[in-house]
Structure formats: C-alpha cells, structure tokens
C-alpha cells in the first residue's frame, strides 16, 4: 500500500470525523439553545412570559404562580392502568371521578354532585354536576362514567387494578374474566344519573371510588388516538400541556374547574433526576425531599435548611412478615419472641435518625380507626425469652431466613440491627437473603418466603385496605398464610357494618388479635421530609395521594 493511499484513508477518516463532530455540535447547539431558551424565559430571567390569559376571563382572579418540583416519569397516565404512587400523583391532578379526597382525606363529591345509598346499602345513585366538563369543554355525562368503568375492566385493557377497586360492582368480575358481555351493576339512568350496585353493603366501596381506576376518561379521545395518554383530556383541576420523557412534565390550571378555580397556575415537574436538594439550593426547585444524609442539617433551625424544613407523616407501614405455615413460624410463640426482642423505637430514632416513626400498630396516625395507644408488641427481652421457652422450637430452632429486596452484599441497616438483637436477646441466629424486586414479588405471592421484610402503602383511607385485605384467610393478598377464625369473623363483620363507629371498633378489635398473633411485626410508619421555598404557601405532603396542587399558592 502506497504512502499516498494511506494518506487518503487518513484524510477521509478525518473528514468523516469532522463532519460528524460538526453536525453533532450543530444539532446539540441548536437543541441545547432551544431548551435553555425556554428555561431562562420561564425562570424569569431575560425573557418576559406573557400569560395569554385563560378563556374564562370573567372569573374572579386568574390562577397565578408557578411551582417547580422534582419527580420522575409516570409509568402511565392511563388512570385505569396505573397502580403506582408516582403515576397516581399526576393522574389525580389531570383526571377525576365521581368522588375524590379532600386535603383532610374526607370523601367528597367530584364529578358527582350528590349521591344516595339505598336502604340495603347495595345501590349507589350518583347525580352528576351540570358544570362538569372535560378540558376540551365537552360536558361529562353518565354515559362517560359508564364507559370509563367498563373500559377499566375490559379484556382489551387487562388492567391489574380494575378488580381490586371496582370488583365489588355486581358483574364486574365476570366481565373482566370474559364470562359476561356487560356489567349489570352499572346502570345509566339518564344523562346525569348513574347507578352502581355492589355485591354486599360495603361502606368502604366509596373510598375505592376515589382511586384512579374509577376515574373518567374521554371516550372520543381514547378511541380515536392510540397515544391519548400523552396529552390526555381529563376533567381534573390541571391539564397536561407538555411532557417530554425524562425531561419535564408541565401541568396548567384548568380555569373552569368545577370544584373551584385552582390558585396555582402552573406546576413544572423536572424529571431528569440528580440530587434534588442541590437543585433546590440552586433555586431550581421549590420543594425537595430530604434524605437521611441531610436530615440533621435540615432539623437544625440554625442551618441554611432549617427554616424551610417540614415533616409530614405518611400512610405507609414497614413490617416483618412470618409465614405461619413454615416452621418455626407456625408457632406463634416464636413470632412473638422475635417481635418482642427488637427495639424498633431505638432503630427508628437512632439508626434512621428519626426519619421514620415507630409503628404503634397496623393503622397509621390519621387513619380512620387509629387509636392513640401503642397496640404493638412491646420491646421486652425478658418476655421474649419466656415466649421462646414456651415454643416447641425452644431447643431445636430451624434455620431462619428473612428475605428482603436488595442487590447489595450486606443486609439493610435495620435488618443488621435486628439480627444483632435476636442474637443478643434470644440467642437465635437469623440469615438474611437479598432478592431482586421481581423475584421477591413472585416468591411472596406464592407464599414461598419463610419470612420477609416489606412495606405497604395505603390505597384508600379505610382500615379494610390493610387489615382485611392482607390478613383475611381468604384474601388473595395474604402472603403469610395467616388464618384465625376469630379475626376473620371480625373483619367480615366490619366489611358490611353500616355504623361507622361500630365498624371502626371492629377493626380495632381485629387489629389487636392480629398483633397478638403476630404474623406481622409492624416496624415503622413512613414520614416525608421536605424543604419548601418561602414563596410557596400551603404546601403539604398528604399521607396518601390526593389532588393538592390547587390548594397551593406561589408568589412568583
């Protein structure tokens, strides 16, 4: 090969490289410049953002202000498919259903103006509001509600949440499994009236209707546009105006929202990840979660974070679960011994630096039915040893293996503390196995795990959602195999008890039985720790997902 040819090759490679570099930088510059143009303009820098005012100009005062939040992409904005909290946070702002939850978690009418329950507690008749419209201005009719409920349970959609929330409606199950062509429990009476019939007088059915699965979607949009969830036409207080995957999602106030015009005009969710607190300190975010690394700084009133720090209890519970069909956990003495020999209070306060709150039972503070006593097993090594001595496994303890989700080589910090305390107080050796999330779920569902550590997030504010759903011997979600006729009887009675006080009392009794039998050892209740900028007023972290943006004001 001649020198010339070599040179020619080298030159052509260079030429290609130059072209590629040039082209890339041009593209990058263009797109980068574009992005930032938007960024500077909106952060109030050089450009002026002129609001072209909403159509409803004659309303009292137009929404104003803009909040910048850190979040991640929703898994889906289809309310009938979503089963995760991140997706739900967006969905409750964009969509709505017959009922919703207010700031204090009361069930209040949304698209429905009012409803009546028949004397037998089986039939709910909802009257729709006259002024309820989709974002595009079309009125919401009973037909839309019926279509949406049908769609949620349809075979084409294969929704994992449909039956959990709507399965009480007569005929829903059969329809979902393809055994029936229609749902007799859903009846459109007239344009503004819809009747739902359920299979038993369950007071918690109303609470389930506040979940996205029961929300209303626009039939025309869903059927005409495959990609409708990218710019959904909902009925909620906010409409989606922009969504760039992994970058940003923008919600804008629905000026003609039927429950009152939102005071906050715009919410920008930044989805790209990175340290939220750093960005908050750079004034790129208005609210940032605080992690355990920064909690001391945030709690110190004299620190730069101190004045902005707030903590909000959440409806989440972490727990240890024992499979009651596998030795040694088929013996309640062993379960109780393990539960009473761990100092959960100290671990919550010291190991987790107060990021979590010790669980005093199954129900979190603020839940209907919560009582202000510590119902959980006390930390009492003496009593724990006595329990262990009574157990049939006192002298021949089988190998105990606790499974938790994780990829690391070592157990989570609290699990390490538990192991240490079980060794110290009981002389029992416990092994920890870490498993990836998908394997963990399938093993948990098949009751293969001897013991595991997990958490539960309340879906709706009713004790049924955790006490009955996860522990009744017939429940599909009972992962411990727990079965106690006394407990079952209590929760079955509570399911259909119409008097709220009696009903909550039944759940309290059931909770006491459950904690005594100890298929679960409740560990901690979740707490959300955030810093919030001065300009934001009325920010709150509700204990579970509820629409909240419209209550917030931002002076910017």
């Amino acid at each position: 090969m001649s020198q010339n040819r070599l040179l020619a090759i080298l030159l052509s490679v260079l030429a290609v490289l130059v072209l590629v570099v040039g082209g890339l930088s041009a593209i990058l510059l263009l797109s980068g410049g574009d992005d930032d143009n938007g960024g500077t303009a909106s952060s109030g820098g050089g450009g002026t953002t002129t609001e072209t005012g909403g159509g409803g100009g004659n309303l009292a005062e137009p929404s104003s202000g803009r909040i910048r939040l850190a979040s991640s992409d929703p898994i889906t904005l289809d309310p009938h498919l979503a089963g995760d909290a991140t997706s739900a946070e967006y969905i409750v702002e964009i969509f709505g259903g017959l009922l919703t939850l207010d700031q204090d978690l009361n069930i209040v009418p949304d698209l429905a103006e009012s409803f009546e329950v028949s004397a037998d507690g089986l039939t709910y008749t909802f009257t729709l509001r006259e002024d309820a419209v989709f974002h595009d201005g079309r009125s919401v009719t009973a037909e839309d509600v019926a279509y949406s409920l049908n769609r949620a349970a349809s075979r084409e959609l294969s929704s994992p949440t449909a039956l959990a929330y709507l399965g009480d409606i007569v005929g829903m199950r059969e329809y979902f499994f393809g055994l029936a062509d229609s749902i007799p429990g859903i009846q459109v009476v007239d344009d503004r009236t819809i009747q739902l019939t359920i299979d038993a007088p369950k007071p918690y059915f109303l609470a389930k209707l506040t979940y996205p699965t029961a929300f209303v979607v626009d039939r025309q949009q869903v059927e005409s546009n495959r990609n409708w969830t990218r710019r959904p036409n909902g009925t909620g207080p906010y409409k989606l105006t922009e969504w760039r995957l992994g970058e940003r999602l923008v919600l804008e106030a629905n000026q003609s929202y039927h429950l009152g015009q939102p005071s906050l005009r715009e919410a920008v969710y930044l989805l790209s990840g990175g340290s939220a607190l750093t960005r908050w300190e750079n004034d790129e975010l208005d609210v940032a979660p605080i992690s355990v690394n920064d909690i001391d700084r945030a709690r110190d009133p004299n620190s730069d974070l101190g004045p902005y720090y707030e903590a909000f209890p959440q409806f989440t519970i972490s727990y240890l679960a024992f499979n009651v069909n596998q030795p040694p956990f088929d013996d309640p003495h062993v379960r109780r011994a393990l539960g009473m020999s761990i100092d959960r209070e100290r671990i919550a306060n010291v190991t987790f630096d107060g990021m979590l709150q010790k669980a005093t039972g199954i129900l979190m503070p603020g839940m209907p039915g919560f009582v202000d006593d510590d119902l959980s097993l006390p930390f009492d090594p003496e009593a724990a040893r006595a329990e262990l001595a009574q157990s049939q496994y006192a002298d021949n303890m089988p190998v105990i293996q606790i499974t938790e989700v994780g990829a690391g080589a070592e157990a989570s910090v609290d699990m390490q503390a538990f192991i240490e305390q079980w060794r110290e107080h009981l002389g029992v050796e416990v092994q920890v196995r870490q498993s990836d999330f998908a394997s963990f779920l399938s093993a948990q569902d098949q009751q293969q795990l001897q013991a595991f550590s997990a958490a539960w997030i309340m879906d709706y504010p009713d004790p049924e959602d955790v006490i009955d759903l996860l522990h009744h011997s017939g429940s599909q979600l009972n992962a411990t195999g727990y079965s106690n006729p006394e407990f079952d009887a209590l929760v079955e009675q509570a399911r259909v008890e119409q008097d709220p006080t009696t009903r909550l009392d039944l759940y309290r009794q059931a909770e006491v039985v459950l904690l005594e039998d100890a298929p679960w050892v409740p560990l901690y209740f979740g707490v959300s720790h955030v810093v919030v900028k001065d300009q934001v007023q009325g920010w709150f972290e509700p204990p579970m997902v509820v629409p909240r943006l419209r209550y917030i004001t931002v002076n910017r």
Partner: protein
Amino acid sequence: MGAYVIRRLAWLPLILFIVSFATFALARFGPGDPVTVAAGQIRDPEVLAQIRQDKGLDDPIPVQYARWLGDAVRGDFGESFIQRGFTVSELIFPKMWVSAQLGFLALVMIFVVGIPLGLLAARLAGTWVDPAIIGTLLFLQAIPVLVLIPPLLWLFALQFNILPVGGWDGIFEIWWIAGVIAVPIPDPHLYLPLLAFTLPGFVGVARLVRISALEVNTLDYVRTARAKGLSEANVQWRHVFPNSLLPVITVFGLALSGIIEGALFIEVLLGIPGIGSFLFEAVTSRDYDVIMAATVIFATAFVLTNLLAEIIYGLVDPRVRLGASRN
C-alpha cells in the same frame, strides 16, 4: 475485502438470532415477570393469570419467541411495561442518543488526550517521565470501572463537592451573557462519566503512539530531515508526528468496544439515562421487550465495531489480508 465484509455481515443475523433467543429464554426462565411488577401492590393471582393469558405470556417460549421475532423483523419491538403507552423504539432511541453523545465524546477524548501523552512519552524516552506516563496509564487501565467510579465520586462529589454525583443534563449548559449571547460550556454532569470512560482507555492510544513515534524517529527520512538542518521542532511536527499517527487508527475499534462495554456500568452507577441504565432497569423489572431490544442493539453494536476495527486494520496495514485463508 468487499467480499470479506459481506461475508462477515452475513453472519450478523445468525449471531443476533442466537443472542436474542438465549436472552429471550433466560429472561422468561428467571423468577418474576413484568405483569407481577407492573401490578403494583395489589396482586390478585387470578387477575395476573388473566393478564398473562391476554398478553400471550403463558404460551410456550418458542411460540412467544417466534411472535417476538416476527414483530421485530418488521421493526416492531413491542411495548414497555414500565413506560406504558410508548413503543420500545420510541423509548430506546432517546436513550441511545444520550449514550452515543457520551460515547462519542469519550472516544474523541481518548485520542485527543492519548496522542499527546504518547508523543510526550516518546520525546522524553530515557527520562523518568516516559515510564511515569505509561506506568500511570497502565495502572488506570488495570482498574475495573466498577472499582474506579466510587473513588472518583468520593473525591469529586463528596470531598471537593465540585461535581454532581450523577445524572445527565445534556452536553452543553448555556451561559447567557447579558441575556443575548449564548455561551455553551460543557455540562458539569459530563465530567465524571467521561473520566470513567476515558481513564482506562488512554493507555491503548498512548502506548501505540509512543512506540510508533520512537520507531519513526529512527527512520531514514527523519535522519535526512535532521541532516538537512531542520530544527528539531520542525522535524517532530512535520515528519515524526503525522507518520506515527497511522497505526493509532487501529485502536479506534478497540476503544469503541471498550466504551460500549463500559456503558452498562458507568451509566448505572452515575445515573445517566442511556441505553445501559435502561437495560439495567428493564432487567430488574423484567420488562421483556425492552431487555430484548437493548440486547439486540448492544450485540449489533459489538459485532459492527469489531468488524470496523478489522476493516480499518486491514486498510492501514498491508500485511493483514482480510479473509485470507489461514494455511
């Protein structure tokens, strides 16, 4: 040569078939499935079974694979379970774009930094600088990426607190001067991943440049140039430098496949939303269609990169005859 390239390319479908089938089967034999993960915390086994049936996930694996292959050949890579309402192709291209930008910058940097270091080492051969440069670079190459990243993070993000711990914000950050003039500066999120990509890669380029520069230095035409009375700087710049660069092209392919390999770890550890971390997420949530698409892309990139390396090598070095029979 053309025939050789075509022959090599003809193998690509077979390689992809084997890789994809193995991945497909492995993913489905593993415990857990996307339906379970996507269901959230309320998982009714009967409901999940129905969904699996609706989605054809309970068919025999060869049947499912055939269906996947049929769709994939037509360009349909299915739908993600963790980002509903978007096709896998729609999701994967932005991620590939992120990885490509980063990989390209890393590739350029390996050469831009590696070549001067190699020339410097050759120039100062016989002094302590030469072994110091090459020794340091060799040491850096010997550290696996997984081990390299934590100390980098500790140093730059925690100790000095000058670089973000991870994330991605595009290549450039724009600084506005007086709100009118845009000045692009490299985004701070770039530095750590670039270091992780390039530190192990410099040595390959630097060593080759060094050896080749040393060799060129002893050649007749260089001696002639010196004899003509050209200044040493002129000799180096006009004769040694261009002629010692030729062999460097051959490490291009090697450097590129190193970058593709590194993408998986570096992106996951530094939170870069590229195809590597996308694949990792997909694996942990059993997002079958995404796993398949990402695997196919990685495999194709690997095969093509290696082929490219061979072609360039054959072009540059006449002693290598591609496709020549081995006896």
